[in-house]
């Protein structure tokens, strides 16, 4: 009896956010004609996937290690700039591109891999030099990572210059596929696929291995985890590196979407990313995923139905979610 009650409570707990997502997805059908609705919905979901790619690294680091990395945006920018080097005409992967869809996507994936590796190394340095001393102290994290962000942005300017750098999408990823009268941008489909892969990968790593548990335990009581025989330091470095690599992957994708790269390309999306992470419930990858989709959808439907409100739609969504669930959709930790 009690067991069943518990189970039902848990089910409601788990599925209410999904129900809410469904509501946000389908409710606008009342007001919008189905063709337009479909365009908006697909575009919104794809946008959400791209945001998720950028936010996933943050939520990983934020949620597991309780580190507020304001410099996350810098790694997004690094990914973006690396993409300009790798994918521009004349870049190393340019040869692959412009021939077939396979070649273009291949080049893009290669660029993502390279960017991830490079950003991972940077993340390692960043963790060593900057984050290491501030585990457990939110405020100092904010400050030191903001400092890191400034330094990183300035170094980017020194290396790549202050001018925005254009980055055209590969030929075959441009334009839309038409299903009847409904346009679906090709690039967004690719983004969707990649976002899904990243989500599943993280889901597996966190739920099928001990890493997630260990990191969470390490944040709560580092000494005890060490006393159980684990090297918390290495673990944290690893997670942080993974977070920066994901940021860079998001950066490559975002740069190709924007088709122009500026120093602030990462910092500009950070508020949005933070909102997604908060809505999701700090550190829950699933929550972050759902949050990103919700943000994407809300922005599109609001933008269509009431453009004047679109401006604050993300913030409104966040406040609404927090009023409903003060700790986000899927709080990763219970306290």
């Amino acid at each position, binding site marked *: 009896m009690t067991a069943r009650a518990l189970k039902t409570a848990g089910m409601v707990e788990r599925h209410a956010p999904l129900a809410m997502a469904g509501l946000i997805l389908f409710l606008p059908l009342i007001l919008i004609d189905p063709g337009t609705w479909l365009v908006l919905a697909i575009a919104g979901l794809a946008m959400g996937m791209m945001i998720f790619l950028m936010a996933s690294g943050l939520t990983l680091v934020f949620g597991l290690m309780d580190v507020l990395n304001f410099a996350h945006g810098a790694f997004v920018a690094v990914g973006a700039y690396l993409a300009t080097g790798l994918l521009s005409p004349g870049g190393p992967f340019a040869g692959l591109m412009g021939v077939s869809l396979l070649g273009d996507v291949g080049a893009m994936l290669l660029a993502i891999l390279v960017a991830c590796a490079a950003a991972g190394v940077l993340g390692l340095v960043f963790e060593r030099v*900057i984050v290491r*001393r501030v585990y457990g102290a939110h405020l*100092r994290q904010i400050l*030191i990572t*903001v*400092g890191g962000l400034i*330094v990183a942005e300035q170094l980017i300017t020194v290396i790549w210059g202050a001018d925005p750098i254009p980055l055209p999408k590969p030929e075959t990823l441009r334009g839309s596929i038409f299903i009847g009268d409904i346009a679906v941008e090709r690039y967004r489909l690719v983004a969707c696929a990649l976002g899904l892969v990243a989500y599943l990968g993280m889901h597996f790593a966190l739920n099928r291995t001990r890493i997630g548990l260990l990191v969470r335990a390490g944040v709560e009581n580092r000494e005890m985890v060490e006393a159980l025989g684990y090297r918390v330091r290495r673990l944290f470095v690893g997670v942080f590196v993974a977070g920066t690599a994901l940021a860079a992957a998001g950066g490559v994708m975002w740069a190709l979407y924007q088709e122009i790269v500026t120093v602030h390309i990462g910092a500009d999306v950070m*508020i949005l990313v933070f909102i997604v992470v908060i809505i999701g419930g700090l550190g829950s990858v699933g929550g972050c995923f759902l949050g990103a989709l919700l943000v994407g959808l809300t922005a599109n439907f609001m933008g269509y139905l009431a453009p004047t409100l679109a401006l*604050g739609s993300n913030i409104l969504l966040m406040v609404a979610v927090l009023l409903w669930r003060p700790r986000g959709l899927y709080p990763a930790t219970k306290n």
Partner: protein
Amino acid sequence: MLNWIISGDRPRSRILAAVLIIILLGLLLAPFVFPGTRSLAVAARICVLIVLVASYDILLGYTGIVSFAHTMFFGIGAYGVAIALNALGPSWGAVGLGTVAGVAVSIAAAAVIGLLSLRVRAIFFSMITLAVASFFLILASQLSFITGGEDGMSFRVPRMLTPAFKLFEDEIFGQRFNGRLVAYYLVFISSLVLFLFMLRVVNSPFGRVLQAIRENDFRAEALGNRVVLYRTAASCLVAALAALAGVLNALWLRYTGPDATLSFAIMLDILLMVVIGGMGTLYGAVIGVVILSLAQFYLQDLMGAASSALAGIPVLPELIAADRWMLWLGILFVLSVYFFPTGIVGKLRER
């Protein structure tokens, strides 16, 4: 007597005491010791920021609340007088009305935010303030017919505060006694009084409860203190102080705009100043403000000089070119958090 004025909050370090006295004298005599428009502007900005940053420290260092909405209140104060002066013309009445309105709106806003959201976990509260602040920033730029939008608003202040107003006809000690001087001393004295007031607040029974809440809010509640009420009261108090700082800033600059009062960059500056100086000590705020303001205003010049001195060496001049002053500020940021976890004041007191 002195002990009463500083509310018994001694610097507890010789060096710190000396530095504070130098800063006080420097600001008091700034118009005479450091002639020139820029240095007066720097001095006035330091005065305003001391109020702003110290009030933020009450929230952050003493109460343990991380809010990103502090500049919002700063802006409300500034826009308050700006709008009043624009609408009613440059009179002291308008200044008074604008101040009262700005402070009242700030307190009301802080109370609403506090009562609604100070119950949630600290980090969520910060994010909510971040969101509210960016919403307010959007609002200020959208309501351009009142606020001047992105471009902000220039306005005229009472004649007594403008260069046209002459106290004496001649220069004395090489200084023109005009309205700018009056304006400076208005800013200076108001800031000093507000700072001493804050010193009293943090050393009062109220201030001690705030520290207790920062340490362990659950226990503070169990002692019989209504934590949400205290936190909200603290937010309201510092909101009012920030608004007053905004008023001073507006009167001095005769301009206000989103970038000058509301931007996230200022918020970060404030944070950095608190932390570099040393959280949870108001003297730290003073030190942080002075160091960072001087850096912001003069680092660039210094680097320009250094860079041209090093011309010819590869890469290095590029890194210390004047335009890269932000790079060094960022490094300063990181190093200070790294090496002064308790801030400069904490470091000084350790010895």
